[in-house]
């Protein structure tokens, strides 16, 4: 009873926050509602006993991804009216993605597994240990491939943004650290009335 009640509570919150993500006029508010949506999905994962997946979702998406979103969105100067006007253009694409995700959910829940099978799978052992058991053995190739995909994305982003400009002055940390007082300061004895001879 408690489980079902909290499921509907968090699910309702999740859907509400998702709606606010789309319809908030201020993009910063959108990102903050997105954070709430991630938090609610974390709670949902914990409710079904998948505490490891839930907390990893919180660490990765709330603790890193959404902060970077917020970081970028805060610095943008977005005209709110144009943003609202353009939203209609993206509706067909959004419907397409929604259809794909819905089809995946239906495939996974209806055809792939039966329900009590999943339940015993979850309850039989510590959630974290179970993931650890299969991640590097059964799903080794998939895991490494997804890592390589992420690496490629990162390198691509760096290549796109990191343009070498010869006019920019850069610091050479090693040479800065290896300088001593003798390189920078020289003690001279100056006779009165002669000044410094530049040599």
């Amino acid at each position, binding site marked *: 009873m408690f489980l079902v009640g909290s499921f509907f509570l968090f699910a309702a919150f999740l859907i509400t926050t998702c709606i606010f993500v789309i319809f908030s006029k201020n993009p910063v508010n959108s990102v903050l509602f997105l954070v709430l949506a991630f938090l609610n999905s974390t709670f949902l994962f914990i409710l079904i006993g998948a505490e490891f997946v839930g*907390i990893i979702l919180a660490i990765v998406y709330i603790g890193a991804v959404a*902060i970077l979103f*917020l970081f970028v969105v*805060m610095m943008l100067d977005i005209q709110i009216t144009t943003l609202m006007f353009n939203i209609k253009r993206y509706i067909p694409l959004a419907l397409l993605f929604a259809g794909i995700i819905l089809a995946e959910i239906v495939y996974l829940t209806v055809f792939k597994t039966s329900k009590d099978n999943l339940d015993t799978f979850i309850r039989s052992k510590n959630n974290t240990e179970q993931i650890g058991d299969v991640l590097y053995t059964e799903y080794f190739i998939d895991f490494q491939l997804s890592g390589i995909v992420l690496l490629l994305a990162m390198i691509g982003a760096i290549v796109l943004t990191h343009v070498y400009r010869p006019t920019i002055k850069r610091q050479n940390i090693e040479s800065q650290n290896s300088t001593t007082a003798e390189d920078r300061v020289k003690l001279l004895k100056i006779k009165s009335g002669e000044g410094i001879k530049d040599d």
Partner: protein
Amino acid sequence: MTSLSFELTIGILKIFSFVVPVLVSVALLVYLERKVLGAVQLRKGPNVVGPFGILQSFADVLKLLTKENLLPSSSNKFLFIFAPMLTLILSLIAWAVIPISSTYVIANINIGILYLFAVSSFGVYGVIIAGWASNSKYPFLGALRSAAQMISYEVSIGFVIITVLICVGSLNLIDIVESQKNMWFAIPLLPMFVIFIISALAETNRLPFDLPEDEATLVAGFFTEYSSISFGLFFLAEYANMILMSSLTVILFLGGWYPPIDIFPLNVIPGIFWFVIKVFLILFVFLWVRATFPRYRYDQLMRLGWKIFLPFTLIWVVITSAFLFYFGLLPN
């Protein structure tokens, strides 16, 4: 039904038994910091309110409470008020999983260390929301700096935690402490211990890494616009976070509630005493560092995080796991 309400009462009492000592020790920590800084700089420090000035922080809190809370007219009002609350809440809810002794803990959950890591990574939201909601340039720059800084140092903190977890074989905080019964992890993992303390300084925005509130360039950083008790909440949260990171250091590296050597006069002293003593020592290191080192420049901070700590911790994760695997010391 009575058993439920009984459990609820016990739970609430347990929560108070953690939160009240934490808040009191925040006040004492502020006093201690001013005394230590005074001693380092050959001054007396606070010495007027109460015996040896020990009530100074309580007097400061009362002063903050009686002042007017100013709301900048161009700020986002809701988020402006919400940010300090969020910061304090996050620094207090982390205490739910901290084990003071082998039995004294509010919630002994399987993924305690991940919960702590998640909560400490949420801490940046308070800062970044405060900076944005103030709608003013210095708080905004402070918020941007802190967002980048805290994310950078979380990466190396994550690798340090992974090294400890490889040696323990469990994510449960009590298991982590109990596996240090014979040897504290600070000894075999000394470099990671040092890196963890330095990253903790950066994560709690303490000197020499307090660039988010760098008064020389940013007035007061992200809380420039805050006054009265909303400033007080940020202040409380910063010190509560310091105590939290120190306890995390004690749990991960200094054997939690265990005495230094397991011999007669030491092991009859209750574990909570050892825990408090160790936390106090780490906190003293925090204050000592503040009195000793000058502030880093921002590019030096980023270089230290990404170019030195990240590769070093990554290599240590590999070395530790290879060592444990080769000598058959892996847990389980």
